[in-house]
């Protein structure tokens, strides 16, 4: 492994880790706030217990998300100094605003976690909502910064120089809306399915069914609404990518040849040498329709793009297939769930429905990781699309390989510990929360 690949791997690892934690830290507060709201309105203590249990999870994930985010803000410079030297002043705007949003989130979380029985109950609840809202805002801002790398704007690139910089234009680049929308919905779907799946498993095991049932319902509704909305935002994203980054779309679809009435390629094994895809299902005209709203439109293939500018086709294609496939799975489960809620109440008592949710526990996050791989790998070899190559941005310091090993060890151990802690939280539900009239614990 050379230093360049090590730097890319370390960045991928850091982001791949952070994305999971920040999604949960961003979305769980909403579940928590809903459950808290129901408690305040109905006085049903079970909802208070669910709220408190979730708030512990939020605290753990927030702390982990915050530190891994801190690492990233340094890694941008530690690994990609040449990129940051030029890009910092241009795409920094959303980061500076994100600082504010994230700060507010940290403050609100302080109020929320430590404010039980100390403040007016609606003020306290409000700080919980604020945790969610400011988390969501910071998520949107960070994605806007990433979108700029896909769709650079707000400057003129003349003779290798970055001139006429306008940070606001850079922030509202062409890709920010579609990317932020897609990411936020994904965060809700992923976190929703993960949380619902865990509670579904506990219900199936018959432990503390009342508690887990209430928790399951809240998470499942969020998850399913998000999963139903996601294909729409996916469509917006696909059209956007097709327009702005034809190379990425071509790689996603393993679309080697420019053609009219381009088929949608499902599955298959891309063969980059012979420029073809083996064993794929093809739906004629569908890709043209998806990218340009017209079954006969011409879709740019990789043959129109210089070979040195090709993204890694296989990785991008597989990741895209995985994302879409998992999205479809979640969509199907959501449809079943809503049919069950509205028409077939008896299904809600059935084990198979819960089992489906258990099965889908990791689906959302696998899809998030796959989708993020599509975004990032699909942009290669560019770090700023069409302007700066990733290879030109990497730090001159040798030995990044060791740094990569070190961070791999750190992230792996963190992942293990957090999983272990969640397991313990769940195991302790009976002891801590399942009492109908739980005495208010002290500040601990």
């Amino acid at each position: 492994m050379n230093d360049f690949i090590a730097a890319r791997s370390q960045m991928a690892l850091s982001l791949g880790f952070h994305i999971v934690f920040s999604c949960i830290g961003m979305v769980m507060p909403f579940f928590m706030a809903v459950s808290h709201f129901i408690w305040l309105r109905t006085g049903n203590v079970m909802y208070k217990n669910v709220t408190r249990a979730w708030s512990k999870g939020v605290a753990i994930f927030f702390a982990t998300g915050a530190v891994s985010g801190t690492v990233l803000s340094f890694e941008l410079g530690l690994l990609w100094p040449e990129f940051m030297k030029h890009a910092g002043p241009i795409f920094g705007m959303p980061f500076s605003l994100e600082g504010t949003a994230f700060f507010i989130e940290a403050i609100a979380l302080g109020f929320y976690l430590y404010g039980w029985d100390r403040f007016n109950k609606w003020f306290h609840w409000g700080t919980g909502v604020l945790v969610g809202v400011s988390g969501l805002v910071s998520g949107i801002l960070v994605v806007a910064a990433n979108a700029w790398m896909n769709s650079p704007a707000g400057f003129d690139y003349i003779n290798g120089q970055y001139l006429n910089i306008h940070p606001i234009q850079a922030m509202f680049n062409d890709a920010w809306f579609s990317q932020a929308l897609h990411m936020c919905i994904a965060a809700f779907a992923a976190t929703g399915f993960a949380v619902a799946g865990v509670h579904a498993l506990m219900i199936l095991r018959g432990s503390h069914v009342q508690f887990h049932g209430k928790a399951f319902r809240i998470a499942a509704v969020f998850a399913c609404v998000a999963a139903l909305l996601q294909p729409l935002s996916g469509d917006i994203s696909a059209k956007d990518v097709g327009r702005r980054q034809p190379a990425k779309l071509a790689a996603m679809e393993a679309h080697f040849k420019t053609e009219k009435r381009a088929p949608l390629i499902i599955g298959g094994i891309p063969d980059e040498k012979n420029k073809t895809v083996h064993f794929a299902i093809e739906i004629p005209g569908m890709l043209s329709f998806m990218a340009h709203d017209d079954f006969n439109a011409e879709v740019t293939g990789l043959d129109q793009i210089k070979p040195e500018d090709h993204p890694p086709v296989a990785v991008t294609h597989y990741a895209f297939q995985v994302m879409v496939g998992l999205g479809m799975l979640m969509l199907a489960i959501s449809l079943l769930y809503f049919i069950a809620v509205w028409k077939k109440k008896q299904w809600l008592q059935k084990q198979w429905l819960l089992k489906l949710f258990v099965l889908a526990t990791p689906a959302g996050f696998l899809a998030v990781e796959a989708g993020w791989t599509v975004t990032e790998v699909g942009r290669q070899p560019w770090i700023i699309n069409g302007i700066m190559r990733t290879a030109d941005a990497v730090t001159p310091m040798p030995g990044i390989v060791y740094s990569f090993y070190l961070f791999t060890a750190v992230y792996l151990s963190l992942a293990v510990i957090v999983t272990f802690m969640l397991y313990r939280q769940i195991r302790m539900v009976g002891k801590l929360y399942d009492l109908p009239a739980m005495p208010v614990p002290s500040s601990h």
Partner: protein
Amino acid sequence: MLYVVIIFLWTSILLYLLLGGADFGAGIIELFTSRDNQDRTRRTMYRAIGPIWEANHMWLIIAIVILFVGFPEIYTTMSIYLHIPLVIMLLGIVARGTAFSFRNYDAVVDDMQVIYNRIFMYASCVTPFFLGIIAGSAVAGRIDTHATNFLDAYVFSWLHWFSVAIGFFTVAICGFLASVYLIGETDNETDRQRFISKARTTNILAVIAGALVFVAAQVEHIPLMDWIFGNPVGITAIVLASLSLVLLWYLLFHGKTKILRVLAGFQVTMILLTTTYRHYPKIVLLKGGGYLSLLEHAGNEHTMAALGWALLLGSVFILPAVFYLIYSFQKKKASVAH
């Protein structure tokens, strides 16, 4: 707007040193507490910093964002040549933050707590030590952008007596800030006395470490004496800090918690002011006399304007919220105590 941004940068560094420093210090104090008292220290600390520690650490993020948006060359130069201490500091931040939340939110209290506590305590020392090293390296003039071998470029840029001495000094200051802060957070006289004696010890250590910085500067041929005593601002700040130190010692025996905190904060502010004033606007000194300056290496006009407005806008939301957070938890504690 450039000056607004610079003021924000300086203020965030100061607040990180004061608030984040007190935070790190709490872990350092815990490490140097006898085993019998560790639990009590931990409880006091949890009450004192639990609600605000996440917010305390945001000041670092603000400072970093200001650097990479407004002064990219300064940010990238430090990122390249101080890569190793930055990575160690980061690992410290990660270990400390996660260990703190794990030990407070783990549903089961068992032997794992020992591990969380250990990680928390050691990381609380390592992080400010390397923070000090990074600060020291920035002004030591050893960053060699023309170095051709690994050691000169990426190791000796930060590994020298001067930066190491500043590392120790930072650790001592953090411990001092924390013990002074914790005096007012206890709920009984024994603990109170314990923290008062800790404050004395850490203060003495800070003074010794400070003296070592001067020695190290001498050894490394860094004109620290001239930086501090060569200008009226430096002299005034040092005189004021010394006078407040006398007052602080007097009050340590006569206990006035709030004033003690103000004095400790004041001293650290004066130290930062003295050390930064002489160099301003230079922020990173390079080997061979080169430097990176806040004025010459700032981003373009539009970037600085946008950044300045973002910071002003942010502070309208953040500052009242932070103060209300600290205030309300202080108030509630007082009412519980009565």
